[in-house]
């Protein structure tokens, strides 16, 4: 599944990416990004005891949004991520759904570059957008 410059239209939706990370998956992510904040693995940590759970890393959601966009772009189709941004507004917990979504906002040429602006976000089962963001991809 990948797109080309010609195949993209404003209003397109990106194929959704579904995540439901287990605690073990979060530990694997920590092994990948080297952030060992106990908030993300130690249920006895005071903040986790208070919340009743460990929390999914914000960077896990950002990386998942990266996966959403990169999977849509595919490889070797001339498109690459120029920039990707998200912020973290809410909490996600292990074993809960995180749905990564995106839409094509704008397709345009600027300074000789073929660009596509995307709105991207993660949402939980209540539809709350815990990591809203945006990305721009460039085609050569």
């Amino acid at each position, binding site marked *: 599944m990948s797109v080309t410059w010609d195949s993209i239209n404003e209003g397109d939706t990106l194929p959704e990416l579904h995540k439901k990370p287990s605690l073990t998956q979060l530990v694997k992510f920590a092994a990948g990004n080297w952030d060992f904040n*106990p908030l993300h693995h130690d249920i006895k940590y005071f903040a986790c005891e208070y919340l009743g759970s460990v929390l999914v890393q914000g960077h*896990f959601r950002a990386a998942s949004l990266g996966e959403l966009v990169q999977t849509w772009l595919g490889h070797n189709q001339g498109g690459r991520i120029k920039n990707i941004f998200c*912020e973290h507004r809410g909490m996600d917990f292990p074993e809960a759904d995180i749905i990564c979504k995106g839409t094509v906002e704008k397709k345009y040429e600027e300074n000789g570059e073929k660009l596509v602006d995307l709105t991207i976000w993660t949402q939980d089962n209540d539809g709350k957008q815990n990591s809203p963001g945006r990305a721009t991809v460039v085609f050569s």
Partner: protein
Amino acid sequence: MGETFEITEEMKAKVGKESPPWTYEVSRSAVRAFARGTGYTDPIYYDIDAAKAAGYRDLPAPPTFHGTPVYIPGKSEETYSTPLECDVTITLEPGQLPNIMDGGTEYEYFDQICAGDTLTSVAKMASLDTKITSSGKTMLIQSLEFTFTNQDGNVVLIERLKVINH
């Protein structure tokens, strides 16, 4: 305290100042670990032949991954593994704006990062701003910028993030 917070001259003097450089290694194992942690099943992040067949020099770094900072006990922050001497954030007085919020992170790419690359990161405080919340309290917004340069001297990534103290 929040109502009376002001950016001091001492804080302002830190804006624009660059940290010493620090090395981030993009090893094949690190790319695999990050891809595995994120949950990728695409073989290009694991299998060198698959990566090369897709046109990459080596295993590509997944989006938002820029390698692992060289870890040295005493020189690296124990929780986040980041280099202590490259911390350019403002240290506030005890009790001053005690809460921290993530204001978001942007990754601007100029080229593909691949396994085998050695990146040099330089951090700087890009700007310091205050904002008054709807409840009349002051927030401090620290805008940080990390520039990653590869082994050929090319800037491949600028990471911008905001830390909000309130």
